[in-house]
C-alpha cells in the first residue's frame, strides 16, 4: 500500500501534474492510519480486558462459592460439635439424664427441634422431648445422631434455623490475598446466598455476570452456596473504555476527514487562482502585445514612409486609432473586472437613466465602428420604459461588450438584433446574433474570467475572455442576472435582466438601496 503511495507520489512529482495534492494529503493519511491502528489496538485491548474481566469473575465466583461453602460447613460442624459437647457435659453431671436434662439441652441449642435419648442400659426408658410447636407442617427436618458412653442421642433440627445461626460465615466476603504482592487486595465482591440445591453445581451464566453454585456437605447436602459476581463489579461499560475509545477514534477520524477535505478544497481554490493568473498572463499579454505591435508598425511606417499615398497614410492612421481604441477597451475591461471583483475603487454611481437614451447614445457613438465591420444592427425599444436607476457607464459597457461579443462570434451572417423591453419585474436588454452559437459544453463556463470558447482560435477572434464576465458582474451589481439562449449554428441570445425601479418618485430611495455593494 505504502509502496504504491510512494510510487504515486514520485510519479506525480516527476509528472509535475499535481504534486501538491498527494504531499498535502500524506500527513493526513499517516495520521489517520495511526489513529486507525490506535483505535483498533484499543478496541482489541478492551475486548481482551473484557475477556479478562469475565475470567476473573468466573474464577472469583467459584472461589467465593467454594470458600463460603467450606466455611459454612466448618461452622455447621462446629455447631454439631458444640451440641455434642453440651450433651456430654449434661451426661457428666447426672448419671441418668432425664426429661429435664434433654429439655435443657434443647433450650441451649434452639435449632434442634426434637431429641430422643436412648440409654444403653434400658432402651425402653428413652426420653423424648419435642420443642416448639410446628410453625409450618411441611418444614424440612433433618435427623442426626451421636453416641455417648451411656447411650445414644438422636435429634432432628431445622436446617433453616441452623443456617441462620451460621449467617455470619455466609456474610463474610472472601478476600483474595496474595503474599507475594503484599498489600494488594483484589477489590471484588460476590453476592453470596444460600439456595436449595437442585443437582446443578458449578458455573451458571447470567446476563450480566456469573454465578457459581457449590453444595454444602451432608447433612445439609440439599443446600448450596451460590456466589454471584457481576462483571459490572469488576468494570465494564464506561469503565471498560471500549465505547470511549471507539467513539473517540471515530470522531478523530471524522475530524481528519474534514481536515483533509478542507485542505483539498483550499488547494483546489488555489489551483483555480493559479489557473486564472496563468490565463490572464497568457490572454492579456497576447492581447496587449498585438495592438501594440500594430500601432508600432503603423507608426514606424508613417515615420519612414514618405512615399506613401494619401489613402495608405489614412489607412495607417485608422489602424493606429483602431488599435488604440481596442487597447483602451481591453484595459478598461480588465480594470473593471478587477474593481468589481474586489469591491474596491468607486462604487457604481446610480443615476436615473432612460434606457432608450442609453441605447441610442451608444449606437450613435459606435455606429461607424459597427458599420466598418460590416454589421447590421437593428434596435427595437419599448417606448413605455421609465428612467431607471442605473450606473450609466457600466450598463453601456455591458451592452457594448455584448454587441462586441456578438460581432466577434459571428461568421457570414452579420446581423445583430438589440431589443429593449420590459416585463413587470425587469427591464430586459436583449442582444441576438444569428450565427455560430455556443456549444453546450461551453455554455456554463462563458462567464468565467479569461475563459474562451474552445473553438475560438485566438488569432482571429481577439479578446481577453473578460467581456462576458464583466457583463455578468455589472448586471449582478445592479441586482439582475444574465440569461443565455443558444443553439449551435443558429445563434445566441443574451438577455440582461435588470430589476425595474419602482417609480420615479421613489427612485432616490431605490438608488440608495441599490447602491449597496452586492455580492458578486
Amino acid at each position, binding site marked *: 500500500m505504502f509502496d504504491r503511495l510512494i510510487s504515486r507520489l514520485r510519479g506525480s512529482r516527476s509528472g509535475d501534474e499535481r504534486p501538491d495534492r498527494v504531499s498535502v494529503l500524506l500527513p493526513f493519511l499517516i495520521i489517520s492510519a495511526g489513529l486507525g491502528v490506535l483505535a483498533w489496538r484499543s478496541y482489541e485491548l478492551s475486548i481482551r480486558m473484557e475477556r479478562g474481566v469475565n475470567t476473573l469473575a468466573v474464577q472469583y465466583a467459584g472461589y467465593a462459592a467454594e470458600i463460603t461453602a467450606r466455611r459454612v460447613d466448618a461452622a455447621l460442624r462446629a455447631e454439631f460439635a458444640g451440641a455434642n459437647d453440651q450433651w456430654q457435659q449434661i451426661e457428666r453431671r447426672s448419671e441418668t439424664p432425664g426429661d429435664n436434662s434433654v*429439655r435443657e439441652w434443647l433450650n441451649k441449642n434452639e435449632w434442634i427441634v426434637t431429641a430422643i435419648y436412648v440409654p*444403653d442400659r434400658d432402651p425402653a426408658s428413652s426420653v*423424648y422431648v419435642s420443642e416448639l410447636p410446628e410453625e409450618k407442617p411441611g418444614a424440612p427436618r433433618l435427623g442426626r445422631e451421636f453416641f455417648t458412653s451411656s447411650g445414644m442421642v438422636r435429634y432432628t433440627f431445622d436446617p433453616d434455623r441452623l443456617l441462620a445461626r451460621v449467617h455470619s460465615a455466609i456474610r463474610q466476603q472472601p478476600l483474595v490475598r496474595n503474599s507475594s504482592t503484599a498489600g494488594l487486595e483484589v477489590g471484588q465482591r460476590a453476592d453470596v446466598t444460600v439456595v436449595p440445591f437442585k443437582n446443578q453445581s458449578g458455573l451458571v451464566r447470567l446476563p450480566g455476570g456469573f454465578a457459581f453454585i457449590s453444595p454444602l456437605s451432608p447433612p445439609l447436602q440439599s443446600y448450596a452456596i451460590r456466589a454471584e459476581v457481576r462483571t459490572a463489579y469488576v468494570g465494564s461499560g464506561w469503565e471498560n473504555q471500549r465505547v470511549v475509545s471507539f467513539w473517540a477514534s471515530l470522531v478523530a477520524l471524522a475530524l481528519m476527514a474534514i481536515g483533509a477535505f478542507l485542505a483539498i478544497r483550499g488547494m483546489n481554490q488555489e489551483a483555480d487562482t493559479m489557473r486564472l493568473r496563468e490565463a490572464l498572463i497568457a490572454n492579456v499579454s497576447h492581447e496587449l502585445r498585438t495592438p501594440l505591435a500594430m500601432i508600432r508598425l503603423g507608426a514606424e511606417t508613417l515615420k519612414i514612409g514618405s512615399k506613401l499615398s494619401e489613402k495608405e497614410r489614412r489607412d495607417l492612421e485608422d489602424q493606429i486609432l483602431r488599435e488604440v481604441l481596442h487597447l483602451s477597451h481591453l484595459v478598461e475591461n480588465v480594470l473593471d473586472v478587477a474593481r468589481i471583483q474586489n469591491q474596491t475603487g468607486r462604487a457604481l454611481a446610480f443615476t436615473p437613466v432612460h434606457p432608450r437614451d442609453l441605447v441610442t447614445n451608444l449606437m450613435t457613438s459606435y455606429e461607424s465602428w459597427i458599420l466598418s465591420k460590416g454589421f447590421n444592427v437593428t434596435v427595437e425599444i419599448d417606448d413605455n420604459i421609465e428612467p431607471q436607476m442605473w450606473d450609466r457607464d457600466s450598463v453601456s459597457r455591458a451592452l457594448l461588450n455584448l454587441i462586441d461579443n456578438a460581432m466577434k462570434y459571428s461568421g457570414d451572417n452579420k446581423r445583430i438584433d438589440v431589443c429593449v423591453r420590459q416585463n413587470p419585474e425587469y427591464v430586459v436588454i436583449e442582444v441576438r446574433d444569428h450565427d455560430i452559437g455556443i456549444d453546450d459544453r461551453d455554455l456554463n463556463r462563458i462567464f468565467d474570467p479569461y475563459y474562451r470558447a474552445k473553438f475560438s482560435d485566438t488569432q482571429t477572434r481577439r479578446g481577453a475572455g473578460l467581456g462576458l464576465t464583466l457583463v455578468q458582474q455589472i448586471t449582478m451589481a445592479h441586482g439582475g442576472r444574465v440569461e443565455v439562449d443558444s443553439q449551435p449554428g443558429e445563434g445566441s441570445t443574451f438577455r440582461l435582466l435588470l430589476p425595474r425601479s419602482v417609480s420615479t418618485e421613489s427612485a432616490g430611495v431605490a438608488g440608495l438601496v441599490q447602491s449597496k455593494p452586492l455580492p458578486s
Partner: protein
Amino acid sequence: MVLAIAQEPKCHTPAKECERQIRQMLSGRRYLGVDLDEGKPGLVIKSVKADSPASRAELKEGDRLMAVNGKSMEKATVKMFKEALAEARQTGRLWLIVQRRGAYKKVEARLEPYPQEYIEKVISGHLAQAHNVASGGGQ
C-alpha cells in the same frame, strides 16, 4: 398425678405428632442391648438387657470386648464401639471377640430393631410426662 397437674404441659407439639416422631426415630434402629464401661484394655460389659440380641448371643456381664468386626477395641472408648456398631447397621451382623475369665471367645451377634413394646413404653412415658395423658393408654 397432682404433680402433673401442677406442672403445665411441657410439650407443645400435639400428642399424635410426638408419637409419630418417636416411632420414626426408634423404628429401624438396631440395638445390641448391652451397657458398657471402659475398662482398659477392652470394654467391660456392665449389664446385659434381658431378651435382647446380646442376651441371645450369650454375652455375659463382666465380659471384655476386645474386637468388633475386625477392629481392635483394646484401647477403644464406648463411643468408638458405638460407631463400629453404627457401621454394621446395614448388615446387622457383629463378630465380636470377647475375653471371658481370661479366655478369648468368638461371638456372633445379630443386631435387632427395638422391640415394639419398648417403643410403646417410650411413647406412653413421654405422653404421661409431657402431655398429661394417663400412661398405659398406648396408641
